[in-house]
């Protein structure tokens, strides 16, 4: 009877190798990829015009195609919030809850495995590869808290770990698995050469925006401004776009940096009031929060500062509310020294 494994596919090299290793042992593998909303794949390239010329592939899909396996992409945006709000094991260097994230994903994969009659799960994890989620002492935590127990096989480092059920039952031959450990990438690269894999993605740091310092600062600011750790899909998407400037606790501006972003932000004008320069070419800015007349003037002066009219005595802007009603403002662009550094997130 052919055994079936479901593999967690991130789009990086490690999960690709892990799949190939068990495929070579005659196991039927299908991939599962989780979309948390914070994934690095896609998004920013779709938004920024300058990146558009170079088409960006989705690495998880690409990996699946190279391996000849099906890929199931699962939207976990809503459920994942709990992981981000309240990680039992805390955050990493930034707002990345890596250990909780791993546990959550393995748990979801387990549910999928049970619903689809698969036998076990494989991941591309390597002991000691990541500071928190892939340590010798945290790996058993993933197995325990996700409920998967010894149905989780990590082909790249299996020989450093106790034998799992698929090994004990002889579904896979432990001798043909690997003993990689530590942060070095050399064994992975050698194995990739052996399999003839080229052009694979080498993600630096992590697989999602939560490992990004700049991004984490903006998310923290959002939580602080709202008074709780809430976010919607639009919020976390907008954190990837434009300059975020908070001159006061009540509001922030999201100012486009180029045409592609301007066009993208335009799609949000019915959800957020906006400012756009009209006398000079310039950015579109969304206003997140509430403001009085004086603050609106300051906001307009900031936006004017990023327009072609930054050195002009006066710039004309259009303020548009979410209902589409608009009016004109005339302001002097804010001189650079008045734009406080701490406003820029």
């Amino acid at each position, binding site marked *: 009877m052919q055994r079936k494994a479901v593999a967690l596919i991130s789009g990086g090299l490690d999960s690709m190798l892990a799949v190939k290793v068990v495929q070579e042992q005659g196991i039927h593998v299908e991939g599962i990829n989780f*979309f948390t909303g914070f994934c690095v794949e*896609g998004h920013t390239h779709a938004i920024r015009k300058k990146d558009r010329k170079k088409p960006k*592939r*989705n690495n998880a*899909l690409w990996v699946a195609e190279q391996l000849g396996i099906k890929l199931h*992409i*699962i939207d976990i945006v809503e459920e994942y919030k709990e992981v981000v709000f309240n990680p039992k094991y805390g955050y990493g260097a930034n707002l990345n809850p890596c250990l909780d994230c791993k546990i959550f994903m393995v748990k979801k994969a387990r549910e999928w495995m049970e619903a689809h009659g698969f036998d076990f799960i494989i991941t591309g994890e390597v002991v000691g590869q990541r500071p928190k989620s892939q340590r010798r002492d945290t790996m058993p935590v993933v197995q325990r808290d996700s409920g998967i127990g010894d149905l989780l096989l990590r082909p790249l480092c299996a020989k450093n770990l106790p034998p799992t059920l698929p090994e004990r039952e002889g579904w896979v031959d432990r001798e043909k698995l690997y003993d990689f450990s530590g942060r070095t990438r050399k064994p992975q690269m050698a194995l990739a050469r052996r399999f003839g894999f080229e052009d694979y993605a080498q993600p630096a740091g992590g697989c999602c925006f939560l490992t990004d310092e700049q991004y984490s600062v903006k998310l923290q600011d959002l939580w602080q401004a709202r008074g709780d750790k809430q976010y919607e899909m639009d919020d976390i*998407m907008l954190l990837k776009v434009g300059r975020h400037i908070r001159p006061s606790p009540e509001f922030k501006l999201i100012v486009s940096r180029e045409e592609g972003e301007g066009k993208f932000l335009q799609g949000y004008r019915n959800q957020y009031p906006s400012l756009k320069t009209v006398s000079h070419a310039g950015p579109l800015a969304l206003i997140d929060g509430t403001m009085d007349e004086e603050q609106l003037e300051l906001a307009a002066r900031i936006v004017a500062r990023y327009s072609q009219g930054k050195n002009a005595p006066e710039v004309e802007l259009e303020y548009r509310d979410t209902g589409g009603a608009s009016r004109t403002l005339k302001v002097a662009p804010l001189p650079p020294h008045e734009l406080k550094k701490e406003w820029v997130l």
Partner: protein
Amino acid sequence: MSRYVLDCRRLLCPMPVIRVQDRIAELEPGDELEAVCTDPGVLQDIPAWCRINAHEVLEVREENDEYILRIRVGEEE
């Protein structure tokens, strides 16, 4: 054979792919689905997803900044 339309406007990848995937799961082999998208990323991602899962992209057109992909649902394995 039935034809369906799926609105994926304003969704960014991989959301359009997920919507197409989940919709196709409800359709019969031979049915056609037209996905109307605005993220140009779908021009790579939806065909890639279809290739892996044995569905066929019959047509790709661009109309007023929208990308429309017509997909024929493949046979179950």
